[in-house]
């Protein structure tokens, strides 16, 4: 049903090639608003991940029953009910954090990443593949949000994992940079999020370009070998 190659493609797409934050540039509102620190970012990304996986599976199961013409409202209804579940779970387990994340958990309904996966993948694929797609797209969201959160928290305040006690009682934030680090307020403010995301996208594009160049070089034999003319082998 699902071979290794499709699995690999799904994983690579979610984590890197079609990364929602860096390539599709989707769902930027929570990405920029919540990535002030690592804990908030990771927890919101986890909530998004759960919603993506559940909605992908649900839609994949229902895909033959949903009339094509009204599929979007149906998708939204399914996603919204799943978000309500996650919203209640967060409220019950991480109440402090729930208050901080506030409107951004209900707003997962309108996160275009969720609808995009449902529309582009789950409505055309079997449940198992859809679940994998949901997991890896969600992990893609998770690592970009976490990286942005780590960078902004570290540059902005010189600490990591502040507010971790809301998720794991008793844990403490880590002071990474020296105590007298003056703090770079800009990184914690919205413009800092935009600048940092821009740098991440530039870095991703640079890495991809380099990868492509290297792949090309591997395909064509190096010039030097032909230029020396010592080896008579021609391919």
């Amino acid at each position: 049903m699902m071979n290794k190659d499709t699995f690999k493609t799904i994983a690579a797409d979610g984590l890197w090639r079609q990364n929602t934050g860096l390539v599709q540039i989707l769902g930027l509102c929570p990405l920029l608003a919540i990535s002030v620190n690592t804990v908030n970012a990771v927890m919101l990304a986890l909530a998004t991940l759960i919603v993506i996986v559940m909605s992908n599976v649900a839609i994949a199961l229902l895909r033959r029953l949903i009339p094509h013409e009204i599929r979007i409202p149906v998708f939204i209804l399914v996603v919204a009910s799943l978000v309500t579940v996650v919203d209640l779970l967060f409220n019950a387990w991480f109440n402090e954090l729930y208050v901080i994340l506030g409107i951004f958990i209900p707003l997962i309904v309108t996160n275009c990443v969720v609808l995009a996966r449902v529309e582009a993948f789950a409505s055309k694929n079997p449940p198992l593949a859809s679940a994998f797609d949901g997991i890896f797209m969600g992990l893609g969201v998770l690592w970009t949000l976490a990286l942005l959160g780590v960078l902004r928290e570290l540059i902005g305040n010189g600490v990591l994992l502040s507010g971790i006690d809301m998720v794991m009682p008793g844990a403490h934030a880590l002071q990474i940079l020296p105590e007298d680090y003056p703090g770079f307020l800009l990184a914690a403010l919205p413009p800092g999020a935009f600048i940092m995301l821009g740098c991440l996208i530039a870095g991703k594009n640079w890495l991809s370009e380099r990868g492509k160049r290297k792949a090309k070089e591997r395909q064509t034999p190096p010039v030097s070998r032909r230029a020396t003319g010592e080896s008579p082998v021609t391919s």
Partner: protein
Amino acid sequence: MMLSSPHLREANSVPRIMRLVCVALLPGIAVYTALIGPAVLTQIFLASVAALFFEAAMLKMRALPVRRFLGDHSALVTAWLIALTFPPLSPWWLTVTGVFFAIVVAKHLYGGLGQNPFNPAMVAFAVCIIAFPALMSQWPAQGLTLPFEQQLEIVFGFSPRIDALTAATPLDAIKTALKTNALRVDNIQELLRSQNLYGTFAGRGWEWVTMTYLCGGAFLLLMGVITWHAPFAFVTSMAAAAAICWLIDPSRFSDPLFHLFSGGSMLGAFFIATDPVSGCSTPRGRLIFGCGAGLLAYLIRVFGVFPDGIAFAVLIMNICAPLIDHYTQPTVFGLRARESDT
């Protein structure tokens, strides 16, 4: 296709313009140094070294000829403007951070000289005043003369920063009075006199620094480096806005002359609003640009939360510059106004 401005009119090369701008800044630097002390020169040196380093590094990363572009002195002008707009006793890393944002982010990430939509020095100022509001508001107290070694120690962080070193600038004093609304004087001059902040016609000491910036600007005008439009509009609109507020309530607002010679007004009018890259390039456009910048600078410095409004005013007008240029293109020779629009 419409040819985009600026159109080449004279043999003004970039290195020549930048050199002349540096020369025009010299008298201002001299008076400023006499007022504050050699810390000013330290900041200028620090900013210049950092700017040349970042410029060379970015040119190398972008695979451009380092020597040729480093020699156009544009990084140097940016560095000097940063050093002159930052508080002279700010720690060294603050200046270097500012220069980093100016050269790397505002200039090279946008495509280098000629491509930057925002004035690099003003980006540096805005970034630093948002990120480090406390440090960027610490101006040395009037009449404070520290020995050179002590100034160096403060800049390079070997000696603790003492609050008594710094004091409110004349602009700060006025703003505080406006906010607290607890004035017991008839006009703002008396208030400043009572705090020993008022000189002959503006802030004590600062008036002469800004006066020499004005002279430097006049020199640039004479040399044909800048045109009169942007500075004239800047000064006029700021004076007009100040005059209106002053006439309405002289006990809360200070007179136009004070505003023109306080803070960064003159530097902004002659050296920053006239930036050939991030400013407007049509004559009418420059008038609009200067007008907007002067008005916004007045509003931000009087009613805003920041000590001076020049940087934000210029950045806001920088965003508008392409639009202003688009609507103020001069009529093409030989066509009537309507036809040349298309």
